[in-house]
């Protein structure tokens, strides 16, 4: 089997990304890259269901579950993140089932589904804040530093290791995206997003298909939260859970491109660079400005570039190619 041009480009790109930290050691850019990779993975996870019209505003909740369950199990029970992270992911999956099953069973779709999931974001944030004796509440929470092996505690002081971990997870996220894209589940989800009754008449178990993609998306998002926690070694309800985080996911994916695999990654690059730019450029004078800019840009994008930056660029590249045979025929 010969490789396509895209496969070769992808391979070279990933190789370059793997080699990057060994050539380039500067800590701050590497830190930004790690954040971009972790958030790209979180956004990709959101887009797994978002691309099929299942707009969740509850993914901040799943991310919070991923981060807090992992950290709480480590601090209180001494459970290694290697076990804690899978438990956190399962917890998020179960939470997704509990919220999504009644929604799908009783046909809560569109705006109403978004509102139900919005409540989930709020609830997770409230639970973290209310159980402050355990979670540190709104002051945030820090997993205890280990004195022994960093591997068992999944704590590393060097950025290179974290960069490679984040890169691997990001690649796995893209692989899952492509796996779903090529599966029959994509056909089913596209059909469901258009017409649930007609999909059922084609034999699709509508509720089951929607649940599958929702649980997958929630579980992946929880992993992103856990990774963020292990890397930053500090989490607070505002940075890994809540409505603001959920909205940030929607915004980044819409800006990057909801229907293309690298769209969420492009969205992460833009949002994180913008937030950092504002922080460095204006310092404490610009606290909260990024949210304002997000809001304005979100409106602009939904109206003028609904396919996002990457989606629209790919369309531009495709159009001249697609126009040729039509001209030849005419």
């Amino acid at each position, binding site marked *: 089997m010969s490789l396509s041009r895209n496969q070769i480009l992808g391979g070279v790109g990933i190789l370059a990304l793997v080699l990057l930290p060994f050539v380039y050691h500067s800590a701050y850019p590497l830190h930004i890259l790690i954040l971009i990779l972790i958030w790209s993975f979180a956004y990709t996870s959101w887009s797994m269901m978002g691309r099929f019209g299942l707009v969740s505003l509850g993914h901040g909740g799943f991310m919070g579950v991923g981060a807090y369950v992992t950290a709480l199990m480590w601090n209180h029970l001494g459970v290694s993140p290697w076990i804690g992270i899978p438990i956190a992911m399962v917890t998020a999956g179960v939470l997704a089932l509990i919220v999504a099953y009644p929604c799908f069973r009783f046909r809560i779709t569109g705006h109403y589904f978004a509102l139900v999931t919005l409540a989930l974001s709020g609830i997770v944030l409230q639970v973290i804040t209310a159980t402050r004796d355990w979670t540190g509440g709104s002051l945030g929470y820090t997993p205890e530093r280990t004195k022994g092996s960093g591997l068992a505690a999944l704590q590393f002081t060097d950025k290179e290791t974290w960069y490679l971990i984040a890169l691997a997870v990001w690649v796995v996220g893209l692989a899952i995206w492509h796996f779903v894209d090529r599966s029959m589940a994509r056909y089913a989800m596209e059909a469901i*997003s*258009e*017409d649930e009754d*007609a999909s*059922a*008449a*084609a*034999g699709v178990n509508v509720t089951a298909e929607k649940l599958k993609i929702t649980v997958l998306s929630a579980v992946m998002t929880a992993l992103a939260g856990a990774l963020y926690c292990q890397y930053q070694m500090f989490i607070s309800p505002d940075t890994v859970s809540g409505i603001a985080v959920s909205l940030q996911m929607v915004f980044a994916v819409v800006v990057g491109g909801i229907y293309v695999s690298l769209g969420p990654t492009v969205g992460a690059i833009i949002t994180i660079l913008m937030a950092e730019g504002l922080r460095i450029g204006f310092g404490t004078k610009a606290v909260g400005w990024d949210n304002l800019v997000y809001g304005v840009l979100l409106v602009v994008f939904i109206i003028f570039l609904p396919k996002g930056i990457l989606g629209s660029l790919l369309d531009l590249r495709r159009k001249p190619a697609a126009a040729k045979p039509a001209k030849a025929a005419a």
Partner: protein
Amino acid sequence: MLVVDKLVKRFGGFTAVNNVSFKVDQGEILGLIGPNGSGKSTIFNMLSGTLAPTAGLIQFEGRQIAGQAPHWIINRGIGRTFQIPRPFRRLSIFDNVALAGYYGQGGHSKTKAFDAAEKALAMVGLPTDREASVDGLGAAGLKKLELAKALATGPRLLLADESLGGLDEHEMDQAAEMLRRIRKELGITIIWVEHIMGVLMRVVDRVMVLDHGEKISEGLPSAVAHDPKVIEVYLGSDAGAVQAATGGGG
């Protein structure tokens, strides 16, 4: 093959289907007619699982199916078309049918699904290339696609809902011929709901007439067309033409 016993469907205080019983034999084409709002589509929706009956039994190949979910019923061998075609516009024509071929037959094998899709498309006379867009189809093409989707699920009983609405006379004849071929070549039993009486009467083995949710007549097309009750509620001024069609054609 299909036994429907004392089927009832009420929406609040309104009884859409009242105590309707009938049987469909293996290999037959049963026509289901009646004026608008007589309960034809409601019966279809109960047979295909879209609506749960208020009371009554539906037995398909010896198994109770009343109140089961649509996807479960489709997977037991009952396919359906919709009165107004409902294509998935985000998928190509082929993918529309492949989807039905996959999920309508248990969702086990992609190869089998693609096979079923190719056969169903060839049967109804649509192109089998993978990319052709649904947007290129007219009214007749969309009806064909609807039929291909139902066929790809591998039904033993096909519920065809007013397949001919919106077609011209030539297209109607072709579509009627199609249903006859589906029965002959694929051995599929058919229940056909239709407004256009003349064509239906030429193709079906038996007709059942509904009015206000009740069965008012059932039998051979020629007999039903002469039933005074049927003439009164449904056929009206068209009676002569339909009688001529059933009498002459046979």
